[in-house]
Protein backbone atom coordinates (compact mmCIF):
# COMPACT_ATOMS: atom_id res chain seq x y z
CA UNK A 1 0.00 0.00 0.00
CA UNK A 2 1.43 3.36 -1.02
CA UNK A 3 0.30 6.78 0.17
CA UNK A 4 0.20 8.30 -3.30
CA UNK A 5 -2.61 5.90 -4.22
CA UNK A 6 -4.87 7.89 -1.91
CA UNK A 7 -3.89 11.45 -2.85
CA UNK A 8 -5.09 13.22 -5.97
CA UNK A 9 -4.00 16.58 -7.34
CA UNK A 10 -7.47 18.09 -7.07
CA UNK A 11 -7.53 17.40 -3.32
CA UNK A 12 -4.37 19.44 -2.75
CA UNK A 13 -4.28 23.15 -1.95
CA UNK A 14 -0.94 24.88 -1.60
CA UNK A 15 -2.44 28.18 -0.56
CA UNK A 16 -5.09 27.75 2.13
CA UNK A 17 -6.91 31.02 2.78
CA UNK A 18 -8.36 30.40 6.28
CA UNK A 19 -6.65 31.91 9.28
CA UNK A 20 -8.11 30.00 12.19
CA UNK A 21 -8.39 26.36 13.17
CA UNK A 22 -12.10 25.87 12.39
CA UNK A 23 -11.91 27.55 9.01
CA UNK A 24 -8.80 25.55 8.09
CA UNK A 25 -10.76 22.35 8.81
CA UNK A 26 -13.67 23.61 6.66
CA UNK A 27 -11.33 24.50 3.81
CA UNK A 28 -9.64 21.09 3.97
CA UNK A 29 -13.07 19.39 3.93
CA UNK A 30 -14.02 21.40 0.84
CA UNK A 31 -11.10 19.77 -0.99
CA UNK A 32 -13.00 16.46 -0.80
CA UNK A 33 -15.89 17.94 -2.86
CA UNK A 34 -18.77 16.61 -0.76
CA UNK A 35 -22.29 17.97 -0.49
CA UNK A 36 -23.05 20.66 2.09
CA UNK A 37 -24.74 18.33 4.58
CA UNK A 38 -21.84 15.86 4.45
CA UNK A 39 -19.36 18.70 4.91
CA UNK A 40 -21.20 19.78 8.07
CA UNK A 41 -21.23 16.23 9.47
CA UNK A 42 -17.56 15.78 8.70
CA UNK A 43 -16.67 19.09 10.35
CA UNK A 44 -18.45 17.97 13.54
CA UNK A 45 -16.56 14.67 13.62
CA UNK A 46 -13.20 16.37 13.03
CA UNK A 47 -13.95 18.88 15.78
CA UNK A 48 -14.83 16.06 18.14
CA UNK A 49 -11.44 14.47 17.47
CA UNK A 50 -9.65 17.81 17.89
CA UNK A 51 -11.39 18.32 21.23
CA UNK A 52 -9.71 15.15 22.50
CA UNK A 53 -6.32 16.74 21.80
CA UNK A 54 -4.95 18.61 18.79
CA UNK A 55 -3.78 16.59 15.81
CA UNK A 56 -1.06 19.21 15.36
CA UNK A 57 1.90 16.96 16.14
CA UNK A 58 4.60 19.62 16.07
CA UNK A 59 7.16 20.82 13.51
CA UNK A 60 4.40 22.68 11.65
CA UNK A 61 2.41 19.54 10.80
CA UNK A 62 -1.17 18.53 11.59
CA UNK A 63 -3.01 15.37 10.61
CA UNK A 64 -6.73 15.92 11.30
CA UNK A 65 -8.60 12.62 10.97
CA UNK A 66 -11.87 10.85 11.70
CA UNK A 67 -14.19 8.10 10.64
CA UNK A 68 -17.41 9.23 9.00
CA UNK A 69 -20.40 7.84 7.14
CA UNK A 70 -20.05 10.54 4.50
CA UNK A 71 -17.32 8.62 2.66
CA UNK A 72 -17.46 5.04 1.39
CA UNK A 73 -13.72 4.70 0.95
CA UNK A 74 -10.69 6.25 2.62
CA UNK A 75 -10.19 9.86 1.44
CA UNK A 76 -7.22 12.15 2.01
CA UNK A 77 -6.36 15.76 1.22
CA UNK A 78 -3.32 17.99 1.65
CA UNK A 79 -3.34 21.69 2.44
CA UNK A 80 -0.57 24.22 2.98
CA UNK A 81 -0.83 27.55 4.73
CA UNK A 82 2.43 29.37 3.93
CA UNK A 83 2.09 31.84 6.84
CA UNK A 84 1.06 29.17 9.33
CA UNK A 85 -1.94 29.15 11.64
CA UNK A 86 -2.52 28.55 15.34
CA UNK A 87 -3.83 24.97 15.41
CA UNK A 88 -3.23 24.47 19.16
CA UNK A 89 -0.43 22.06 18.18
CA UNK A 90 1.27 20.13 20.97
CA UNK A 91 4.46 22.18 20.54
CA UNK A 92 2.27 25.33 20.60
CA UNK A 93 3.86 26.49 17.33
CA UNK A 94 2.02 27.49 14.11
CA UNK A 95 1.01 24.74 11.69
CA UNK A 96 1.83 25.05 7.97
CA UNK A 97 1.01 21.60 6.55
CA UNK A 98 -2.28 19.74 6.92
CA UNK A 99 -2.97 16.14 5.95
CA UNK A 100 -6.70 15.33 6.20
CA UNK A 101 -7.74 11.68 6.53
CA UNK A 102 -11.37 10.53 6.47
CA UNK A 103 -12.18 6.83 6.73
CA UNK A 104 -15.55 5.08 6.44
CA UNK A 105 -16.87 3.58 9.71
CA UNK A 106 -16.37 0.03 8.52
CA UNK A 107 -13.41 -0.76 6.34
CA UNK A 108 -12.79 -4.13 4.87
CA UNK A 109 -9.24 -3.34 3.88
CA UNK A 110 -8.38 -1.64 7.19
CA UNK A 111 -6.35 1.21 5.74
CA UNK A 112 -7.11 3.98 8.23
CA UNK A 113 -4.40 3.38 10.85
CA UNK A 114 -1.68 2.33 8.39
CA UNK A 115 -2.30 5.50 6.33
CA UNK A 116 -2.24 7.63 9.50
CA UNK A 117 1.04 5.96 10.55
CA UNK A 118 2.61 6.39 7.11
CA UNK A 119 1.69 10.07 6.84
CA UNK A 120 3.10 10.70 10.31
CA UNK A 121 6.29 8.87 9.37
CA UNK A 122 6.60 10.73 6.04
CA UNK A 123 6.10 14.13 7.66
CA UNK A 124 8.71 13.31 10.31
CA UNK A 125 11.51 13.00 7.75
CA UNK A 126 13.89 15.86 8.35
CA UNK A 127 13.77 17.41 4.86
CA UNK A 128 10.03 17.02 4.26
CA UNK A 129 8.76 20.28 5.87
CA UNK A 130 11.32 22.26 3.85
CA UNK A 131 10.39 20.44 0.64
CA UNK A 132 6.68 20.96 1.24
CA UNK A 133 7.27 24.67 1.65
CA UNK A 134 9.04 24.82 -1.74
CA UNK A 135 6.17 23.22 -3.70
CA UNK A 136 4.67 25.44 -6.39
CA UNK A 137 2.06 23.07 -7.83
CA UNK A 138 0.13 19.98 -6.68
CA UNK A 139 1.95 17.71 -9.14
CA UNK A 140 5.16 18.34 -7.22
CA UNK A 141 3.53 17.02 -4.06
CA UNK A 142 2.73 13.75 -5.84
CA UNK A 143 6.29 13.67 -7.15
CA UNK A 144 7.66 14.13 -3.64
CA UNK A 145 5.62 11.16 -2.39
CA UNK A 146 6.97 9.09 -5.27
CA UNK A 147 10.54 10.21 -4.59
CA UNK A 148 10.20 9.22 -0.94
CA UNK A 149 8.77 5.86 -1.97
CA UNK A 150 5.53 6.30 -0.06
Amino acid at each position, binding site marked *: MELREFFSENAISLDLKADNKDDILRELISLLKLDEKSEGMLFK*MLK*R*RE*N*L*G*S*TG*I*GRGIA*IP*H*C*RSLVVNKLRVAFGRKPNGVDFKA*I*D*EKPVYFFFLIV*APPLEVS*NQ*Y*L*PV*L*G*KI*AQFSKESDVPGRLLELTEPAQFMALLKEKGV
Partner: protein
Amino acid sequence: MNAPIAIAAILATVGILLGGSVVLTRLTGRIGIPIALGFIAVGLLAGSEGLGHIAFENYSFAFRAGVVALVLILFDGGLNTPPSSLRPVAAPALLLATVGVIATAGVLAAFAHLAGGLDWPIALLIGAVVSSTDAAAVFATLRGSGTSLKSRVGRLLEAESGLNDPIAILLTISLTTFVLYRTIENGGSVWTLPLTATFEIVVGGGAGWLAGKGSTRLITQVRLESAGLYPVLTLAIAMTVFGVTTLLHGSGFMAVYVAGVVIAGATQLPHRPAILRVHDAFAWLAQIGMFLVLGLLAFPTRLASAALPGLGLALVLTLVARPAAVALCLAPFRYSLRETTFIGIVGLRGAVPVVLATIPVMAGIPGARRIFDVVFFIVVLNTLMPGTIVAWLARKLGVVGAATPEAAATIVIESSEPMQSSLRSYFVDRALPVCGVPLSEVPFPDGAAVTMIVRGSELLVAEGSTELQPGDHVYVLASPEADPMVQLLFGRPEVLE
Protein backbone atom coordinates in the same frame (compact mmCIF):
# COMPACT_ATOMS: atom_id res chain seq x y z
CA MET B 1 -7.28 22.40 83.86
CA ASN B 2 -3.64 21.44 83.46
CA ALA B 3 -1.87 21.75 80.12
CA PRO B 4 -1.92 18.14 78.82
CA ILE B 5 -5.64 17.84 79.52
CA ALA B 6 -6.34 21.16 77.83
CA ILE B 7 -4.39 20.09 74.74
CA ALA B 8 -6.12 16.71 74.75
CA ALA B 9 -9.50 18.44 74.88
CA ILE B 10 -8.55 20.82 72.05
CA LEU B 11 -7.21 18.00 69.88
CA ALA B 12 -10.27 15.85 70.52
CA THR B 13 -12.59 18.74 69.61
CA VAL B 14 -10.66 19.70 66.47
CA GLY B 15 -10.41 16.03 65.50
CA ILE B 16 -14.14 15.43 65.85
CA LEU B 17 -15.00 18.60 63.92
CA LEU B 18 -12.52 17.85 61.13
CA GLY B 19 -13.46 14.19 60.91
CA GLY B 20 -17.16 14.99 60.93
CA SER B 21 -16.66 17.51 58.13
CA VAL B 22 -14.61 15.11 56.03
CA VAL B 23 -17.15 12.30 56.32
CA LEU B 24 -19.91 14.78 55.51
CA THR B 25 -18.38 15.47 52.06
CA ARG B 26 -19.70 12.06 50.95
CA LEU B 27 -23.25 13.07 51.84
CA THR B 28 -23.17 16.63 50.44
CA GLY B 29 -21.59 15.36 47.21
CA ARG B 30 -24.35 12.77 46.80
CA ILE B 31 -27.23 15.19 47.30
CA GLY B 32 -25.61 17.95 45.22
CA ILE B 33 -25.16 20.54 47.97
CA PRO B 34 -21.89 22.49 47.85
CA ILE B 35 -19.43 20.93 50.29
CA ALA B 36 -18.67 24.27 51.97
CA LEU B 37 -22.19 24.48 53.33
CA GLY B 38 -21.70 21.19 55.13
CA PHE B 39 -18.60 22.52 56.86
CA ILE B 40 -20.39 25.72 57.88
CA ALA B 41 -23.26 23.63 59.25
CA VAL B 42 -20.84 21.58 61.35
CA GLY B 43 -19.33 24.83 62.68
CA LEU B 44 -22.77 26.23 63.49
CA LEU B 45 -23.78 23.02 65.25
CA ALA B 46 -20.59 23.02 67.28
CA GLY B 47 -20.88 26.72 68.16
CA SER B 48 -22.05 28.34 71.37
CA GLU B 49 -25.65 28.39 70.24
CA GLY B 50 -25.51 24.89 68.79
CA LEU B 51 -25.13 21.43 70.29
CA GLY B 52 -21.40 21.76 70.91
CA HIS B 53 -21.55 24.96 72.99
CA ILE B 54 -18.06 25.95 71.87
CA ALA B 55 -17.71 29.63 72.75
CA PHE B 56 -15.54 31.04 69.98
CA GLU B 57 -15.47 34.69 69.03
CA ASN B 58 -11.80 35.29 68.45
CA TYR B 59 -11.66 37.28 65.20
CA SER B 60 -7.96 37.94 65.46
CA PHE B 61 -7.18 34.20 65.70
CA ALA B 62 -9.60 33.57 62.85
CA PHE B 63 -7.79 36.17 60.72
CA ARG B 64 -4.30 34.80 61.46
CA ALA B 65 -5.42 31.23 60.79
CA GLY B 66 -7.22 32.52 57.71
CA VAL B 67 -4.07 34.06 56.25
CA VAL B 68 -2.22 30.77 56.70
CA ALA B 69 -5.19 28.94 55.15
CA LEU B 70 -5.21 31.29 52.14
CA VAL B 71 -1.48 30.82 51.60
CA LEU B 72 -2.02 27.05 51.52
CA ILE B 73 -5.09 27.28 49.25
CA LEU B 74 -3.47 29.69 46.79
CA PHE B 75 -0.20 27.76 46.61
CA ASP B 76 -2.10 24.55 45.93
CA GLY B 77 -4.20 26.37 43.32
CA GLY B 78 -1.00 27.51 41.61
CA LEU B 79 0.54 24.03 41.73
CA ASN B 80 -2.52 22.68 39.91
CA THR B 81 -2.44 25.40 37.23
CA PRO B 82 0.63 24.96 35.03
CA PRO B 83 1.40 27.95 32.77
CA SER B 84 0.31 25.94 29.72
CA SER B 85 -3.28 25.80 31.00
CA LEU B 86 -3.18 29.41 32.19
CA ARG B 87 -1.84 30.87 28.94
CA PRO B 88 -4.94 30.50 26.71
CA VAL B 89 -7.16 32.24 29.30
CA ALA B 90 -4.59 34.64 30.78
CA ALA B 91 -6.01 37.86 29.28
CA PRO B 92 -9.70 37.35 30.20
CA ALA B 93 -8.70 35.92 33.60
CA LEU B 94 -6.55 38.96 34.43
CA LEU B 95 -9.33 41.31 33.36
CA LEU B 96 -11.89 39.42 35.45
CA ALA B 97 -9.52 39.37 38.42
CA THR B 98 -8.93 43.13 38.31
CA VAL B 99 -11.70 45.08 36.55
CA GLY B 100 -14.16 42.26 37.29
CA VAL B 101 -13.47 42.29 41.03
CA ILE B 102 -13.69 46.09 41.21
CA ALA B 103 -16.87 46.18 39.08
CA THR B 104 -18.53 43.45 41.17
CA ALA B 105 -17.62 45.25 44.39
CA GLY B 106 -18.78 48.56 42.90
CA VAL B 107 -22.21 47.37 41.73
CA LEU B 108 -22.86 45.59 45.03
CA ALA B 109 -21.73 48.66 46.96
CA ALA B 110 -24.00 50.90 44.91
CA PHE B 111 -26.95 48.68 45.81
CA ALA B 112 -25.94 48.56 49.48
CA HIS B 113 -25.63 52.36 49.50
CA LEU B 114 -28.76 53.23 47.55
CA ALA B 115 -31.14 50.53 48.80
CA GLY B 116 -29.58 49.72 52.16
CA GLY B 117 -28.59 53.25 53.15
CA LEU B 118 -25.04 52.22 54.04
CA ASP B 119 -22.21 54.75 53.87
CA TRP B 120 -20.17 54.46 50.67
CA PRO B 121 -16.95 53.25 52.36
CA ILE B 122 -18.80 50.56 54.35
CA ALA B 123 -20.81 49.56 51.28
CA LEU B 124 -17.61 49.32 49.24
CA LEU B 125 -15.99 47.32 52.00
CA ILE B 126 -18.78 44.71 51.88
CA GLY B 127 -18.44 44.63 48.10
CA ALA B 128 -14.69 44.08 48.33
CA VAL B 129 -15.00 41.35 50.97
CA VAL B 130 -17.29 39.21 48.82
CA SER B 131 -15.83 40.05 45.40
CA SER B 132 -13.45 37.13 44.87
CA THR B 133 -14.55 33.74 43.59
CA ASP B 134 -13.61 30.16 44.33
CA ALA B 135 -13.43 27.76 41.40
CA ALA B 136 -12.86 24.80 43.73
CA ALA B 137 -16.44 25.19 44.94
CA VAL B 138 -17.72 24.96 41.36
CA PHE B 139 -15.56 21.96 40.48
CA ALA B 140 -16.36 20.08 43.68
CA THR B 141 -20.07 20.45 42.97
CA LEU B 142 -19.67 19.44 39.34
CA ARG B 143 -17.55 16.43 40.25
CA GLY B 144 -20.27 15.30 42.64
CA SER B 145 -22.76 15.28 39.77
CA GLY B 146 -20.35 13.70 37.28
CA THR B 147 -20.36 16.73 34.96
CA SER B 148 -17.33 18.47 33.52
CA LEU B 149 -17.01 21.87 31.86
CA LYS B 150 -15.74 22.92 28.44
CA SER B 151 -12.04 23.40 28.94
CA ARG B 152 -11.95 27.15 28.17
CA VAL B 153 -14.82 27.81 30.59
CA GLY B 154 -13.34 25.61 33.33
CA ARG B 155 -9.84 26.99 32.91
CA LEU B 156 -11.07 30.57 32.97
CA LEU B 157 -13.02 30.01 36.20
CA GLU B 158 -9.97 28.33 37.72
CA ALA B 159 -7.44 30.97 36.64
CA GLU B 160 -9.74 33.82 37.64
CA SER B 161 -10.29 32.40 41.11
CA GLY B 162 -6.55 32.09 41.72
CA LEU B 163 -5.83 35.61 40.52
CA ASN B 164 -8.72 37.51 42.07
CA ASP B 165 -8.06 36.60 45.70
CA PRO B 166 -4.99 38.87 46.00
CA ILE B 167 -6.97 41.77 44.49
CA ALA B 168 -9.93 41.26 46.84
CA ILE B 169 -7.58 41.03 49.83
CA LEU B 170 -5.80 44.21 48.79
CA LEU B 171 -9.09 46.07 48.27
CA THR B 172 -10.43 44.97 51.65
CA ILE B 173 -7.30 45.95 53.57
CA SER B 174 -7.06 49.28 51.76
CA LEU B 175 -10.74 50.12 52.29
CA THR B 176 -10.54 49.11 55.96
CA THR B 177 -7.58 51.46 56.38
CA PHE B 178 -9.45 54.17 54.53
CA VAL B 179 -12.57 53.82 56.67
CA LEU B 180 -10.45 54.04 59.84
CA TYR B 181 -8.34 56.91 58.55
CA ARG B 182 -11.38 58.89 57.53
CA THR B 183 -13.02 58.21 60.87
CA ILE B 184 -9.98 59.26 62.82
CA GLU B 185 -8.52 62.02 60.67
CA ASN B 186 -11.74 63.19 59.05
CA GLY B 187 -10.40 63.06 55.51
CA GLY B 188 -7.73 61.26 53.53
CA SER B 189 -7.30 60.24 49.95
CA VAL B 190 -8.68 57.17 48.31
CA TRP B 191 -7.06 58.12 45.01
CA THR B 192 -3.69 56.60 45.80
CA LEU B 193 -5.43 53.21 46.18
CA PRO B 194 -5.22 52.10 42.51
CA LEU B 195 -1.55 53.06 42.41
CA THR B 196 -0.70 51.19 45.60
CA ALA B 197 -2.73 48.18 44.45
CA THR B 198 -0.97 48.06 41.08
CA PHE B 199 2.42 48.38 42.79
CA GLU B 200 1.67 45.55 45.23
CA ILE B 201 0.32 43.26 42.53
CA VAL B 202 3.26 43.89 40.21
CA VAL B 203 5.80 43.39 43.01
CA GLY B 204 3.89 40.27 44.15
CA GLY B 205 3.72 38.83 40.66
CA GLY B 206 7.40 39.55 39.97
CA ALA B 207 8.56 38.17 43.31
CA GLY B 208 6.42 35.07 42.81
CA TRP B 209 7.86 34.49 39.36
CA LEU B 210 11.45 34.87 40.54
CA ALA B 211 10.82 32.71 43.60
CA GLY B 212 9.09 30.09 41.45
CA LYS B 213 12.06 29.88 39.07
CA GLY B 214 14.56 29.71 41.93
CA SER B 215 12.48 27.17 43.84
CA THR B 216 12.15 24.93 40.80
CA ARG B 217 15.93 24.81 40.52
CA LEU B 218 16.25 24.11 44.23
CA ILE B 219 13.66 21.31 44.17
CA THR B 220 15.11 19.63 41.10
CA GLN B 221 18.74 19.85 42.20
CA VAL B 222 18.66 19.35 45.95
CA ARG B 223 18.38 15.49 45.86
CA LEU B 224 16.82 14.89 49.28
CA GLU B 225 17.15 11.57 51.11
CA SER B 226 13.47 10.95 51.64
CA ALA B 227 10.49 11.56 49.33
CA GLY B 228 8.57 12.87 52.33
CA LEU B 229 10.93 15.82 52.62
CA TYR B 230 9.92 17.28 49.24
CA PRO B 231 6.45 18.47 50.31
CA VAL B 232 8.06 19.93 53.45
CA LEU B 233 10.42 21.87 51.21
CA THR B 234 7.58 23.15 49.00
CA LEU B 235 5.60 24.14 52.11
CA ALA B 236 8.65 26.05 53.35
CA ILE B 237 8.90 27.75 49.95
CA ALA B 238 5.23 28.84 50.10
CA MET B 239 5.67 30.31 53.59
CA THR B 240 8.91 32.09 52.69
CA VAL B 241 7.58 33.51 49.43
CA PHE B 242 4.49 34.88 51.16
CA GLY B 243 6.38 36.26 54.13
CA VAL B 244 9.27 37.89 52.30
CA THR B 245 7.06 39.44 49.58
CA THR B 246 4.68 40.87 52.17
CA LEU B 247 7.63 42.34 54.08
CA LEU B 248 8.78 43.92 50.80
CA HIS B 249 5.33 45.58 50.47
CA GLY B 250 4.27 43.35 47.61
CA SER B 251 1.16 41.18 47.54
CA GLY B 252 2.29 37.99 49.26
CA PHE B 253 -0.89 36.24 48.10
CA MET B 254 -0.17 37.04 44.46
CA ALA B 255 3.44 35.92 44.95
CA VAL B 256 2.54 32.55 46.48
CA TYR B 257 0.02 31.80 43.69
CA VAL B 258 2.43 32.77 40.90
CA ALA B 259 5.26 30.77 42.53
CA GLY B 260 2.95 27.72 42.55
CA VAL B 261 2.13 28.22 38.86
CA VAL B 262 5.81 28.51 37.91
CA ILE B 263 6.75 25.39 39.91
CA ALA B 264 3.83 23.50 38.28
CA GLY B 265 5.31 24.35 34.88
CA ALA B 266 8.57 22.51 35.60
CA THR B 267 8.82 19.57 33.24
CA GLN B 268 10.84 17.37 35.58
CA LEU B 269 9.76 17.90 39.15
CA PRO B 270 10.99 15.12 41.45
CA HIS B 271 8.20 13.40 43.41
CA ARG B 272 5.56 15.58 41.76
CA PRO B 273 2.64 13.27 42.73
CA ALA B 274 3.68 13.31 46.41
CA ILE B 275 4.09 17.10 46.40
CA LEU B 276 0.69 17.63 44.74
CA ARG B 277 -1.11 15.20 47.02
CA VAL B 278 0.27 16.69 50.21
CA HIS B 279 -0.57 20.24 49.14
CA ASP B 280 -4.03 19.09 48.07
CA ALA B 281 -4.51 17.77 51.61
CA PHE B 282 -3.25 21.06 53.09
CA ALA B 283 -5.66 23.00 50.89
CA TRP B 284 -8.57 20.81 51.99
CA LEU B 285 -7.58 21.24 55.63
CA ALA B 286 -7.44 25.00 55.09
CA GLN B 287 -10.85 25.08 53.36
CA ILE B 288 -12.53 22.98 56.03
CA GLY B 289 -10.85 24.97 58.77
CA MET B 290 -12.04 28.30 57.37
CA PHE B 291 -15.64 27.22 56.91
CA LEU B 292 -15.71 25.62 60.36
CA VAL B 293 -14.44 28.89 61.80
CA LEU B 294 -17.11 30.79 59.85
CA GLY B 295 -19.75 28.50 61.37
CA LEU B 296 -18.29 28.91 64.84
CA LEU B 297 -18.07 32.70 64.55
CA ALA B 298 -21.71 33.00 63.46
CA PHE B 299 -24.41 33.35 66.06
CA PRO B 300 -27.83 32.33 64.73
CA THR B 301 -29.63 34.75 67.08
CA ARG B 302 -27.54 37.65 65.77
CA LEU B 303 -27.80 36.48 62.19
CA ALA B 304 -31.58 36.92 62.13
CA SER B 305 -31.27 40.69 61.85
CA ALA B 306 -28.75 40.38 59.02
CA ALA B 307 -30.98 37.99 57.04
CA LEU B 308 -32.86 40.56 54.98
CA PRO B 309 -29.90 42.72 53.89
CA GLY B 310 -27.85 39.55 53.43
CA LEU B 311 -30.49 37.98 51.20
CA GLY B 312 -30.87 41.17 49.17
CA LEU B 313 -27.13 41.55 48.66
CA ALA B 314 -26.69 37.86 47.82
CA LEU B 315 -29.39 38.13 45.15
CA VAL B 316 -27.88 41.29 43.68
CA LEU B 317 -24.40 39.73 43.75
CA THR B 318 -25.52 36.52 42.03
CA LEU B 319 -27.99 37.94 39.55
CA VAL B 320 -26.72 41.45 38.81
CA ALA B 321 -23.26 42.45 40.07
CA ARG B 322 -21.22 39.42 39.07
CA PRO B 323 -22.98 38.70 35.73
CA ALA B 324 -22.67 42.39 34.74
CA ALA B 325 -18.97 42.50 35.67
CA VAL B 326 -18.32 39.27 33.75
CA ALA B 327 -20.22 40.51 30.67
CA LEU B 328 -18.16 43.71 30.75
CA CYS B 329 -14.84 41.89 31.08
CA LEU B 330 -15.51 39.14 28.53
CA ALA B 331 -16.92 41.46 25.85
CA PRO B 332 -13.54 41.89 24.10
CA PHE B 333 -13.03 38.11 23.94
CA ARG B 334 -14.72 35.42 21.89
CA TYR B 335 -17.00 34.03 24.58
CA SER B 336 -20.57 33.19 23.61
CA LEU B 337 -23.54 34.63 25.47
CA ARG B 338 -24.19 31.23 27.06
CA GLU B 339 -20.60 30.89 28.28
CA THR B 340 -20.63 34.46 29.64
CA THR B 341 -23.93 33.82 31.41
CA PHE B 342 -22.63 30.61 32.98
CA ILE B 343 -19.37 32.19 34.16
CA GLY B 344 -21.36 35.14 35.50
CA ILE B 345 -23.78 33.08 37.52
CA VAL B 346 -21.45 30.44 38.94
CA GLY B 347 -18.82 32.68 40.46
CA LEU B 348 -19.27 30.94 43.80
CA ARG B 349 -17.79 32.43 46.96
CA GLY B 350 -15.31 30.38 48.92
CA ALA B 351 -13.29 30.66 52.10
CA VAL B 352 -11.73 34.02 51.16
CA PRO B 353 -14.68 36.28 52.09
CA VAL B 354 -14.77 34.59 55.50
CA VAL B 355 -11.19 35.57 56.20
CA LEU B 356 -11.66 39.01 54.73
CA ALA B 357 -14.75 39.69 56.84
CA THR B 358 -12.64 39.34 59.97
CA ILE B 359 -10.34 42.21 58.89
CA PRO B 360 -12.80 45.07 59.59
CA VAL B 361 -13.77 43.44 62.92
CA MET B 362 -10.14 43.20 63.98
CA ALA B 363 -9.42 46.73 62.86
CA GLY B 364 -12.20 47.93 65.14
CA ILE B 365 -14.42 49.49 62.49
CA PRO B 366 -17.75 50.46 64.06
CA GLY B 367 -20.48 48.04 63.00
CA ALA B 368 -17.95 45.55 61.62
CA ARG B 369 -19.65 42.60 63.31
CA ARG B 370 -22.73 43.44 61.36
CA ILE B 371 -20.62 43.37 58.19
CA PHE B 372 -19.45 39.91 59.23
CA ASP B 373 -23.03 38.71 59.74
CA VAL B 374 -24.13 40.09 56.37
CA VAL B 375 -21.10 38.46 54.67
CA PHE B 376 -22.03 35.17 56.34
CA PHE B 377 -25.43 35.33 54.68
CA ILE B 378 -24.02 36.33 51.32
CA VAL B 379 -21.50 33.47 51.33
CA VAL B 380 -24.07 30.88 52.39
CA LEU B 381 -26.76 32.01 49.96
CA ASN B 382 -24.36 32.60 47.10
CA THR B 383 -23.00 29.09 47.60
CA LEU B 384 -26.45 27.58 48.02
CA MET B 385 -28.28 29.23 45.13
CA PRO B 386 -25.95 28.83 42.17
CA GLY B 387 -24.15 25.96 43.88
CA THR B 388 -27.08 23.59 43.78
CA ILE B 389 -27.98 24.37 40.15
CA VAL B 390 -24.47 24.52 38.72
CA ALA B 391 -24.61 21.09 37.02
CA TRP B 392 -28.11 21.71 35.67
CA LEU B 393 -27.09 25.16 34.44
CA ALA B 394 -23.98 23.80 32.72
CA ARG B 395 -26.14 21.31 30.78
CA LYS B 396 -28.83 23.89 30.03
CA LEU B 397 -26.34 26.45 28.70
CA GLY B 398 -24.36 23.88 26.76
CA VAL B 399 -21.02 24.46 28.47
CA VAL B 400 -20.54 20.80 29.38
CA GLY B 401 -17.26 19.38 28.12
CA ALA B 402 -16.32 15.86 27.15
CA ALA B 403 -16.38 14.19 30.55
CA THR B 404 -13.73 11.58 31.06
CA PRO B 405 -14.77 9.16 33.78
CA GLU B 406 -12.10 8.51 36.35
CA ALA B 407 -10.32 5.18 36.11
CA ALA B 408 -10.90 2.63 38.87
CA ALA B 409 -7.12 2.29 39.22
CA THR B 410 -4.26 4.61 38.38
CA ILE B 411 -0.50 4.20 38.20
CA VAL B 412 1.79 7.12 38.85
CA ILE B 413 5.56 6.98 38.46
CA GLU B 414 7.38 8.71 41.31
CA SER B 415 10.93 9.52 40.47
CA SER B 416 13.65 11.32 42.38
CA GLU B 417 15.68 11.84 39.20
CA PRO B 418 14.50 13.38 35.93
CA MET B 419 13.30 10.56 33.63
CA GLN B 420 13.45 10.73 29.84
CA SER B 421 10.38 8.62 29.10
CA SER B 422 7.01 9.09 30.69
CA LEU B 423 4.10 6.82 31.56
CA ARG B 424 0.77 8.44 30.78
CA SER B 425 -2.83 7.38 30.79
CA TYR B 426 -5.12 7.97 27.78
CA PHE B 427 -8.90 7.69 27.73
CA VAL B 428 -10.24 5.80 24.72
CA ASP B 429 -13.02 7.82 23.13
CA ARG B 430 -15.05 6.55 20.16
CA ALA B 431 -13.64 9.37 18.01
CA LEU B 432 -10.05 8.11 18.37
CA PRO B 433 -8.55 6.09 15.52
CA VAL B 434 -7.36 3.37 17.93
CA CYS B 435 -10.86 2.65 19.26
CA GLY B 436 -11.99 -0.88 18.40
CA VAL B 437 -8.55 -1.84 17.08
CA PRO B 438 -6.32 -4.67 18.38
CA LEU B 439 -3.02 -3.38 19.79
CA SER B 440 -1.05 -5.30 17.16
CA GLU B 441 -2.60 -3.08 14.45
CA VAL B 442 -1.82 0.24 16.15
CA PRO B 443 1.19 1.88 14.40
CA PHE B 444 3.21 2.62 17.54
CA PRO B 445 6.35 4.67 16.93
CA ASP B 446 9.70 3.37 18.18
CA GLY B 447 10.06 3.98 21.91
CA ALA B 448 6.38 3.62 22.80
CA ALA B 449 4.31 0.72 24.11
CA VAL B 450 1.11 0.07 26.01
CA THR B 451 1.89 -1.28 29.47
CA MET B 452 -1.56 -1.79 30.96
CA ILE B 453 -5.24 -1.20 30.29
CA VAL B 454 -7.84 -0.34 32.92
CA ARG B 455 -11.28 -1.52 31.79
CA GLY B 456 -14.03 -0.96 34.36
CA SER B 457 -12.77 -2.54 37.55
CA GLU B 458 -10.37 -4.83 35.69
CA LEU B 459 -6.65 -4.49 34.95
CA LEU B 460 -5.77 -6.01 31.58
CA VAL B 461 -2.45 -7.19 30.26
CA ALA B 462 -1.55 -5.36 27.04
CA GLU B 463 -1.34 -8.16 24.42
CA GLY B 464 -1.30 -7.85 20.65
CA SER B 465 -4.79 -9.29 20.40
CA THR B 466 -6.26 -6.95 23.04
CA GLU B 467 -8.83 -4.74 21.33
CA LEU B 468 -9.13 -1.21 22.69
CA GLN B 469 -12.69 -0.41 23.72
CA PRO B 470 -14.42 2.90 24.33
CA GLY B 471 -14.05 3.82 28.00
CA ASP B 472 -10.67 2.09 28.43
CA HIS B 473 -7.85 3.89 30.20
CA VAL B 474 -4.65 2.93 28.42
CA TYR B 475 -1.20 3.39 29.96
CA VAL B 476 1.46 4.18 27.38
CA LEU B 477 5.15 4.36 28.15
CA ALA B 478 6.75 6.70 25.62
CA SER B 479 9.99 8.50 24.94
CA PRO B 480 9.81 12.26 24.26
CA GLU B 481 10.43 11.59 20.54
CA ALA B 482 7.51 9.14 20.38
CA ASP B 483 5.13 11.39 22.26
CA PRO B 484 3.68 13.38 19.30
CA MET B 485 2.69 10.18 17.47
CA VAL B 486 1.21 8.69 20.65
CA GLN B 487 -0.92 11.82 21.06
CA LEU B 488 -1.97 11.62 17.42
CA LEU B 489 -3.27 8.11 18.07
CA PHE B 490 -4.66 8.57 21.59
CA GLY B 491 -5.38 12.30 22.01
CA ARG B 492 -4.16 14.28 24.98
CA PRO B 493 -3.15 12.35 28.09
CA GLU B 494 -5.36 12.25 31.16
CA VAL B 495 -4.14 14.38 34.03
CA LEU B 496 -3.40 12.22 37.03
CA GLU B 497 -3.27 13.68 40.49
